[in-house]
C-alpha cells in the first residue's frame, strides 16, 4: 500500500480491463446477458399485466406492488448468486493458470490485485443486476415508494454487491483452485446477504408501510454499515494472503475476518434490539436465530475451506469461540422468543420460518462446501450438493408445515428451544458438529502441512 497511490488502485488498473471489460465481450457472456434480459422482460410484463394470475401470491397487493417487490428481490438474488460465484474464480483462477506469480513480478501490488478483482467483478455483474432496474423504477412510481427509501435501498444493493464480490475474492485468495473456492464464496456471501441485502430489501418493501418504515430505515442503514465492514474485512483478508511475508498477516487477517463476520451479526442483532418497537420482538428472535446459524456456518466455512491451507492457524484455536457463541446466542434467543410468546400480537410462526430459512441456508451451503471438498468429480460433487440442498430445504419445510404453533427441531435450533433440556440438547448437537468439523479440518491441515514440507 505504501508504494501504491490510492488512485492507481482503480485508475489504470489492468485487472479491471482484463477481468471486467474483456470478460464482458466474450460471446458466452453476451449470450447470457441477452437471455437474461429476455427472461427479465417477459417476467416483468407478466407481473405487470397479470394481476390475477398464478404469479400473484398476494391478493391484496396494488398494481405495481408485485412488479416492484419481485424485481427488486431479483436484483438482489442476481447479485447474491452471480458475484460470489464469479469472484470465487478470480485469484484461484490466476493460481490455476500459473499467472499469479507473474502479476507479482510484473509489479502489481497485492492491493491493486485485490481491488482490481473486486472492481472487475462489479463491472461484469453490473449489466446483469441492472436488468430489473427499469421495472423497479416503474413499480416504485406506481406504488409511491418515497425516493429517499428507494435511494437507500439501491445504495444497500450496491454495497451488497461490493461485499459479495469481496467475500468471493477472499474465498478465492484462500484456495488453490476455483472449484474448491466456490462453495466457500457462496457460504461466506451469507453474511452480506443476511445483514446488508435483506435489511435494504426490507426497507424497499416496508417503505410504504408507516408503522415499520422507520425501523426498516434504521435497520437498512445499519445493514449498509455492516456491508461496508464485511467488504473491507474480506478485502483485507484477500490482500493479506497475497502480501509479502504473509504468514503473520495471514493469521491476523483470519482472526480479524472471523471476529468481524462472527461479530457482525451480533452488532446487527443488538442494533435491531435497541431500535425495535415493542411490536417487533419477533424480528429480534429471527436475527438471533440467524446469528447463531451464521456463527456455526462461519466455523464450517473455516473447517471446509480455510483450514486446508497449511498457513492457517490451528482449527482448535477457535473451539472456545464456538462455545461462547453458542452459549450467548442461546441465552439471547431464549429471551427474545420467550418474550415473543407472551405477546399475542406477535407471530411466532414468522420467527420460526425465518429461523428455519437461516438453518436451511447454513445447512445447504455447508453441504455444498463439504461435497466440493470430499468428492473429486465435479459433476458428482454438484449432484451431491444439489441433493443435500434439496433435502435440507424440504425436510424442515415439511416439518414446519405439520407442526404449526409447535416448536419443531428444538434440538437443532436455539430459536425453538423453550426448556432447559432442549437447550442442553441443542448445545450438545452443535458442539459435537463443530468439533467434528474442526477435527476433520485439523487432519486435513496436518496432511497439507506434511505435503508442504515434503515429508
Amino acid at each position: 500500500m505504501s508504494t501504491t497511490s490510492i488512485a492507481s488502485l482503480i485508475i489504470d488498473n489492468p485487472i479491471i480491463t482484463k477481468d471486467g471489460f474483456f470478460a464482458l465481450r466474450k460471446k458466452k457472456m453476451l449470450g447470457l446477458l441477452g437471455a437474461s434480459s429476455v427472461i427479465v422482460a417477459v417476467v416483468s410484463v407478466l407481473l405487470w399485466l397479470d394481476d390475477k394470475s398464478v404469479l400473484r401470491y398476494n391478493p391484496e397487493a396494488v398494481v405495481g406492488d408485485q412488479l416492484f417487490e419481485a424485481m427488486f428481490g431479483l436484483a438482489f438474488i442476481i447479485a447474491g448468486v452471480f458475484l460470489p460465484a464469479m469472484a470465487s474464480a478470480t485469484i484461484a483462477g490466476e493460481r490455476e493458470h500459473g499467472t499469479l506469480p507473474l502479476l507479482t513480478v510484473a509489479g502489481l501490488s497485492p492491493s491493486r490485485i485485490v481491488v482490481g478483482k473486486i472492481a472487475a467483478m462489479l463491472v461484469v455483474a453490473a449489466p446483469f443486476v441492472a436488468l430489473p432496474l427499469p421495472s423497479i423504477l416503474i413499480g416504485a412510481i406506481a406504488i409511491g415508494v418515497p425516493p429517499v427509501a428507494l435511494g437507500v435501498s439501491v445504495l444497500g444493493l450496491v454495497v451488497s454487491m461490493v461485499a459479495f464480490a469481496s467475500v468471493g475474492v477472499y474465498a478465492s485468495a484462500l484456495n488453490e483452485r476455483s472449484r474448491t473456492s466456490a462453495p466457500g464464496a457462496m457460504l461466506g456471501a451469507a453474511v452480506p446477504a443476511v445483514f446488508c441485502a435483506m435489511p435494504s430489501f426490507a426497507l424497499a418493501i416496508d417503505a410504504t408501510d408507516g408503522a415499520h418504515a422507520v425501523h426498516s430505515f434504521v435497520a437498512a442503514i445499519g445493514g449498509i454499515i455492516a456491508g461496508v465492514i464485511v467488504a473491507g474485512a474480506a478485502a483485507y483478508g484477500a490482500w493479506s494472503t497475497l502480501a509479502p511475508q504473509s504468514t503473520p498477516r495471514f493469521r491476523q487477517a483470519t482472526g480479524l475476518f472471523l471476529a468481524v463476520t462472527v461479530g457482525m451479526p451480533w452488532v446487527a442483532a443488538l442494533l435491531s434490539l435497541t431500535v425495535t418497537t415493542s411490536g417487533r420482538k419477533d424480528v429480534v428472535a429471527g436475527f438471533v436465530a440467524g446469528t447463531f446459524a451464521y456463527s456455526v456456518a462461519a466455523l464450517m466455512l473455516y473447517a471446509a475451506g480455510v483450514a486446508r491451507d497449511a498457513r492457517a492457524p490451528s482449527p482448535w484455536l477457535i473451539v472456545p469461540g464456538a462455545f461462547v457463541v453458542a452459549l450467548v446466542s442461546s441465552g439471547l434467543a431464549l429471551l427474545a422468543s420467550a418474550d415473543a410468546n407472551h405477546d399475542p400480537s406477535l407471530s411466532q410462526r414468522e420467527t420460526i420460518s425465518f429461523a428455519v430459512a437461516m438453518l436451511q441456508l447454513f445447512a445447504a451451503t455447508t453441504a455444498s462446501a463439504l461435497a466440493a471438498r470430499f468428492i473429486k468429480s465435479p459433476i458428482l460433487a454438484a449432484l451431491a450438493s444439489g441433493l443435500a440442498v434439496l433435502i435440507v430445504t424440504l425436510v424442515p419445510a415439511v416439518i414446519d408445515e405439520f407442526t404449526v404453533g409447535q416448536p419443531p427441531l428444538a434440538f437443532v435450533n436455539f430459536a425453538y428451544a423453550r426448556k432447559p433440556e432442549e437447550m442442553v440438547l441443542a448445545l450438545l448437537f452443535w458442539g459435537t458438529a463443530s468439533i467434528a468439523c474442526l477435527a476433520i479440518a485439523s487432519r486435513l491441515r496436518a496432511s497439507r502441512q506434511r505435503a508442504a514440507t515434503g515429508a
Partner: protein
Amino acid sequence: MGALGMAEPEPSAPTRPTERAPVAPAIAVRDVVRRYGDFAALGGVTLEVPRGALCGLIGPNGAGKTTLLSILATLDEEFSGEVVIDGVDVKRAPHEARRRIGFVPDHTAIYDALSVREYLAFFAAAAELPKPTRHDAICEAIELTDLSALADRPAGGLSKGLTQRLCVARALLHRPRVLLLDEPASGLDPRARIELKELLKRLAKQGVTVFISSHILTELGDFCDHVVLLEGGRVKAADRVENLFAEAAGQKRGLAAVRRIVVEVVGDAERARDIAVTMPSVTDAACDGAVLAVTIAASPKETAKLVRALVEGGVDVASVVPERQNLEALFLSLTKGGAA
C-alpha cells in the same frame, strides 16, 4: 571441489581475464538457505553472475533450480541470506528489484482470451510503464521476439514455441537488466529452441544478463558463457564454461591449466593418439574414428606443437576445435554420481 566464481574463490581458481572486476555483479547470492520444514531445498548457496553474462543454471531434478529462481524473482521471501540483483536487495526492496527483473516461469502462463498485443498491454500497465511509452515498449518487445505478424491473434491459439516467445516478450516489456528463465526450452521443438537461443544471445549482446535454468545440458552447453552447477541445494561449481572444463580436466590429472581439444585427422587416428600421448603437455588422448580428443596444457603453443608433431609423424590434421559441447561429461564429473 573448487566452487569457482563464488565470493571466496579458492587459491587454485583460474583467473577470468575477460571479466571487468570493478563492476558489481548482475546477480549476487550470499549464503542463501531455503527450508521447507526440515528439508533444506537450498543449503547455503553463494554465487555471482557478472553483467551481460549468458549464464546457465544446471542441475538434476530436485537440485533447487526453481527454488533459487523463485527467490531471485522476488516470489519467495522465506529464505535466509542475501540476494542482490543489479545492486538492489530483493528482500529489502522487492518492488525496486522487480523493475530490474524479467521472469519467465517454467510453465507457459498466458491469458487465452487476450490477443498478443492486449496481453502485453496488460503487463505494461501492471508494470506501471508511463502511458506515452507503453505503445513503443509493446512494439519493441513484439519486434524483438518476431511476433509482429501475430500481434492481433488470440494468445490462446499460439503454438508452444510462439507462446514461449510471447512470455519472453512480456518479460522484456520494462527493459529489465536481468532476465531469469526457468526451463524455458522444455517441450519446444528444435526450431523453436534454436530461435529461443538466438533471441537470448541477441539480448545478451544488448547487455541484458540472462540467467537460464535447465536440466537438459545440451540446451545450454553451446550458447552459455557461464555455468552454475547446482546439486542437492548447493553450488558445485560456478564459472565461465571453459574454465570449468579446464578445471574438470585438471582435477582428473592433478593439473591446474589444461583444456580439451578435438582434433580431426586424415589417416590413422590410432597412430595420431600414439604420437599425442608421447608429448609431455598431453595428459589424456583418445580416438574415436577419425577424431582425436586430447587433454592438453591450456596454451596455444602446446596445441601448435601437437599439430606439428602429428604432421611430422605423417598424420594430416583437418581441424582443431576446443571441446565445448560435452556439458554432460562435465556435469557427471563434477556431480560424482550424486545426480542419479
